[in-house]
């Protein structure tokens, strides 16, 4: 007799693996045309362990319950003017960075998982990728909704989709996802699920969500909690995909190693913006970038790579460079944005005296020697009414597209720029690091047509050559979203609400 209700195991099988079928009259290779060109060898898709153990109906049910709770809190936050409870209006600029840089990445990631999921020959991987695609879309939406309240009261939020394809620093995140989405399905999932979600995600989410908690931002904290169970699933998928690929065939090992090296590096480069957010943008600080790197990468990542040793995977060589950079990059990145504050869609400022002391304490080996004098000089200029905005446009790295601010810390020369270059088809290309050069050298055809914002301005493709024209092309408006926090419309409104002269 047939049971009225299926047990969980049967239901799971029917709603995932059983959705697959044998190809009797079509060529299987034509159905999955992207499965082989990367060189990855899959001998048995049945060895795939489903990391989520979720069926689609259960997934909808859980997610719907989370949404209900989340939106109830968003409503309460809005009705109670929650934006007035944040530590200081400067904090909101961290949210502007999040919405303009991270949220479009969630959308790109959703798109990537939908595509990659279509192209795996195994049903388990297809279902896992499909769920993550929907998760990422949900994160994109819920982030926009969390920020929409702030958008009513602060500048810098409203044009984020327009800016994503144009503004010089957003091109950094865009190029990351353009790069992995134009790879094959296996490189894509190693890049996003393993390198980013598994290894680096704690260095993105914890800083923003803890930053929100320390600074009274309930909406963002609640979003963070709501995304947490999704993130846990994403991390599990990241580890599963690595183990699966490595166990399928020994020829996969060197390919996977190259991808791990490449994508950990590209992910790490993007985190420079998180580093500066933690050290400079949070009025209430919870941890320095250096401490976060040590905790979440050096300790946790060290243990992970120890586990992967048995597959023949090793920790990338460049982690020594990152170790050397951890005393510098937050200060250098903030200086890039401070000195280009005229071309950023968020406000910048010099730290208060207390904040300078905190930085001195957290960075005893570098801050007082290299960075404090510069910030104090900038504050003096501000006091004279001569706030420093650097003239001209920076040189960018061809691979990561970040302004070439990284310095030669490996050789103990923290004020000397790192220059690396390659020549390909008689044209020269410049890089910020050995790793960005190496990534280019492996696949130059992929990076020769990078859309480098500075070069595009000089080719006349960004509205014109003057600052006003470029700002109009970016839809920033001079003196609204950009320039210093002091004197900004944001600051004026905040003081009015708080009754401060």
């Amino acid at each position, binding site marked *: 007799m047939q049971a009225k209700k299926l047990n969980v195991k049967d239901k799971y099988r029917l709603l995932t693996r059983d959705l697959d079928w044998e190809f009797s009259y079509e060529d299987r290779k034509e159905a999955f*045309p*992207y499965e082989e*060109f*990367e*060189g990855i060898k899959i001998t048995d898709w049945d060895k795939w362990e489903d990391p989520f153990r979720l069926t689609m109906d259960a997934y909808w049910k859980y997610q719907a319950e989370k949404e209900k709770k989340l939106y109830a809190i968003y409503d309460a936050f809005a009705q109670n003017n929650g934006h007035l409870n944040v530590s200081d209006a400067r904090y909101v600029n961290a949210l502007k960075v999040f919405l303009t840089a991270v949220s479009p990445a969630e959308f790109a990631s959703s798109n990537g998982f939908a595509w990659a999921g279509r192209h795996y020959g195994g049903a388990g991987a297809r279902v896992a990728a499909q769920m993550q695609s929907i998760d990422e879309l949900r994160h994109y939406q819920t982030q926009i909704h969390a920020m929409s309240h702030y958008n009513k009261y602060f500048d810098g939020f409203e044009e984020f989709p327009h800016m994503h394809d144009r503004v010089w620093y957003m091109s950094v995140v865009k190029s990351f996802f353009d790069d992995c989405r134009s*790879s*094959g399905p296996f490189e894509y999932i190693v890049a996003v699920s393993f390198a980013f979600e598994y290894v680096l995600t704690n260095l993105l989410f914890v800083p923003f969500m803890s930053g929100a908690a320390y600074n009274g931002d309930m909406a963002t904290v609640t979003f963070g909690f709501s995304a947490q169970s999704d993130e846990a699933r994403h991390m599990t998928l990241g580890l599963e995909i690595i183990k699966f690929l490595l166990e399928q065939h020994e020829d996969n090992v060197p390919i996977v190693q190259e991808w791990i090296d490449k994508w950990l590096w590209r992910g790490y480069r993007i985190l420079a913006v998180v580093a500066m957010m933690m050290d400079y943008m949070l009025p209430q600080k919870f941890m320095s970038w250096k401490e976060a790197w040590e905790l979440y990468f050096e300790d946790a990542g060290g243990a992970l790579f120890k586990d992967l040793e048995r597959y023949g995977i090793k920790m990338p060589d460049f982690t020594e460079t990152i170790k050397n950079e951890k005393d510098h990059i937050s200060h*250098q990145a903030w*200086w*890039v944005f401070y*000195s*280009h504050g005229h071309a950023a869609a968020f406000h910048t400022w010099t730290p208060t005296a207390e904040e300078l002391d905190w930085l001195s304490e957290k960075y005893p080996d570098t801050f007082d020697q*290299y960075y404090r*004098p*510069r910030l104090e*000089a900038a504050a003096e200029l501000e006091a004279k009414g001569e706030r*420093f905005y*650097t*003239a*001209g*446009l*920076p*040189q*960018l790295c061809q691979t990561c597209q970040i*302004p*070439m*601010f990284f*310095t030669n810390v490996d050789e103990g020369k923290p*004020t*000397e*720029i790192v*220059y690396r270059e390659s020549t*390909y*088809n008689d*044209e*020269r*290309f*410049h890089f910020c690091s050995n790793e960005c050069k190496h990534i280019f050298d492996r*696949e*130059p*055809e*992929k*990076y*020769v*047509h*990078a*859309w*480098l914002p*500075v*070069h595009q301005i*000089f*080719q*006349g493709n960004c509205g014109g050559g003057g600052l006003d024209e470029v700002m109009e092309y970016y839809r920033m408006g001079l003196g609204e979203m950009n320039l210093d926090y002091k004197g900004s419309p944001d600051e004026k409104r905040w003081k009015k609400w708080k009754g401060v002269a």
Partner: protein
Amino acid sequence: MPVKAIRPDYHGEHRDARANFGGAILVYIDWDFHRWFCTPKTFPLPPDMPFGALIEAVIPEGFGQHPQFSEIDWGSVEWTLDHEPFTPDMGRGIEEQGFGHKCILRFSTPGLTENI
């Protein structure tokens, strides 16, 4: 292999080829060790521009905001072009002196090494 692609003939157009800059070449300039300017800067320059004009117009525009700039003794500045020592001829055009598209010109100012 220049790219791993599903098509063996995949080719990316060089988006920043010299021909795309309206006759100019890109020159990246850095004042060594002066991180008041966070990165080297990018300048599209006419290839026949005399080196002297670079010192008179381009470099002040890009680096004049540094408090030490007015103290620079241009006679004692040390130049490198593409990381090799370089002695400029003020009257001759930059391309004639070896400046190519996307070259790197660095100058250092011994005595003015104070960092802010």
